[in-house]
């Protein structure tokens, strides 16, 4: 479904991704692991058309590289950025509204689904998102993207700042997404959870993919873990 080939990305003059190859199949959770600064977030941004890049990104057989972020979003890719870019002056509900690509569109998810998933958000529905607690903001970003009804969702560090119990909940929900036919590209720091729910794991190092395989094979691969994950 998503096929990334020979992707190079640049921030101005600095070359960050050096030929990334991987793909994501329908209904699959793929974990993208790696150390800080290895280029995982950049990969996500490159797919979304948010950084300068060359190479090829094919989405459902169509070249999406070179398109504008909003065009890519309309093709069905959702993106949850890593630093919780909630819109601080809008209410929680308005944040979610902005997730919809067209207002009032019918997709897999409704506002109610979101509020049942995280009751906390329902309580805070009419507060400015800027005053939400760190964790609440994290939940909000996730839901906001889901409102756009994507077929693939790229999530950058969704569990950061979440209480352990909520982390479990998120893991559970990611699996539910998968059941609904949504593919997930999960960028994670917390190995345990990533390994537990993903179908496949990718490890990134210095801007390229240095390992591809099942979580089990990664668990078995002590070298990769030591060299590229530092656990």
């Amino acid at each position, binding site marked *: 479904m998503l096929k990334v080939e020979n992707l190079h990305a640049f921030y101005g003059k600095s070359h960050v991704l050096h030929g990334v190859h991987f793909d994501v199949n329908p209904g699959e959770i793929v974990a993208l692991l790696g*150390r*800080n*600064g290895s280029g995982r977030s950049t990969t996500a941004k490159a797919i979304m058309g948010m950084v300068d890049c060359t190479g090829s990104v094919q989405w459902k057989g169509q070249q999406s590289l070179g398109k504008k972020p909003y065009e890519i979003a309309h093709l069905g890719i959702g993106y949850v950025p*890593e630093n919780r870019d909630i819109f601080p002056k809008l209410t929680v509900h308005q944040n979610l509204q902005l997730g919809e690509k067209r207002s009032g569109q019918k997709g897999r998810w409704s506002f109610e689904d979101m509020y049942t998933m995280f009751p*906390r958000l329902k309580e*805070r529905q009419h*507060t400015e998102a800027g*005053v*939400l*607690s*760190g*964790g*609440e903001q*994290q*939940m909000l970003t996730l839901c906001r993207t889901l409102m756009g009804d994507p077929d693939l969702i790229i999530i950058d*560090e969704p569990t*950061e*700042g*979440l*209480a*352990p*119990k*909520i*982390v*479990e909940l998120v893991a559970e929900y990611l699996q539910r997404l998968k059941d609904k036919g949504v593919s997930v590209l999960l960028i994670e*720091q*917390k*190995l*345990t*959870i990533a390994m537990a729910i993903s179908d496949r794991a990718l490890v990134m190092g210095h801007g390229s993919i240095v390992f591809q395989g099942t979580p089990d094979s990664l668990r078995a691969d002590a070298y990769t873990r030591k060299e590229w994950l*530092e*656990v």
Partner: protein
Amino acid sequence: MTAPTSVSAARPPEGARAPSGGSVGANGFALELRDLRKSFGKTEIIRGANLAVRPGERVAVIGPNGAGKSTLFNLVSGRFEPTSGEVLLHGQRINGKKPFEINRLGLSRSFQITNIFPKLSVFENLRCGVLWSLGYRYTFLKFLADLDDANDRAEELLHMIRLDRKRDVLAMNLTYAEQRALEIGITIAGGAGVILLDEPTAGMSKSETKRFIDLIKEVTVGKTLLTVEHDMGVVFGLADKIAVVVYGEVIAFDTPEKVRANAKVQEAYLGSHVADAQVGTH
């Protein structure tokens, strides 16, 4: 134009850095919350929190998202004013005081979202943190370059947070982890005895977190430390005591072992196996 010198606020840095954890209040607590409450509009977020921290203690504050941990910090540090209840710093009541007044009384905090001076160099960032505590106030009759004590202290801090090499880099050009380190650096710069850290290791990888914990331990020797954390590895690695905040109340305040064993905490927060797993991987 120099601000009036109020003697009580001027703290000799050496004294503050000495392992005393700041002066001790009448009742022996460095920081005490008494039935603290805070409402935003109709919603009461902090519903009668009580906590008493002894000087030199390292306390981890944990609790579900939205429980009110950051809000507690905001109340204590003067960002918000409590609706009712009391905050005592070294036995002195500080509710309703402005952040800068509280800071001058010896309490300093870091932020959950990095909050530094992006267009100043690392060294300048630290020096800004140092100035007031050395009594320089609003003066414009002295050159910064001549303030030996401030410069030395800033250099020392620079070394402490291991950013020597980035001395003259603008803060906005630092990597995330470096910015977090700087955040801590500014927080401890003024030599406050009570330090509040809000999720200091968020967004860091395991190895960085580990390094960072060591750093925090090192720079807060002898101080009273309160830190919010979700990473149980950090919590158990750092804290002498744990305070559990749920729904705006402190439901438990005890040693790590006892807290972990506490069923109420398990139910409200830890969610059994993840906690174990995390602690395990550490």
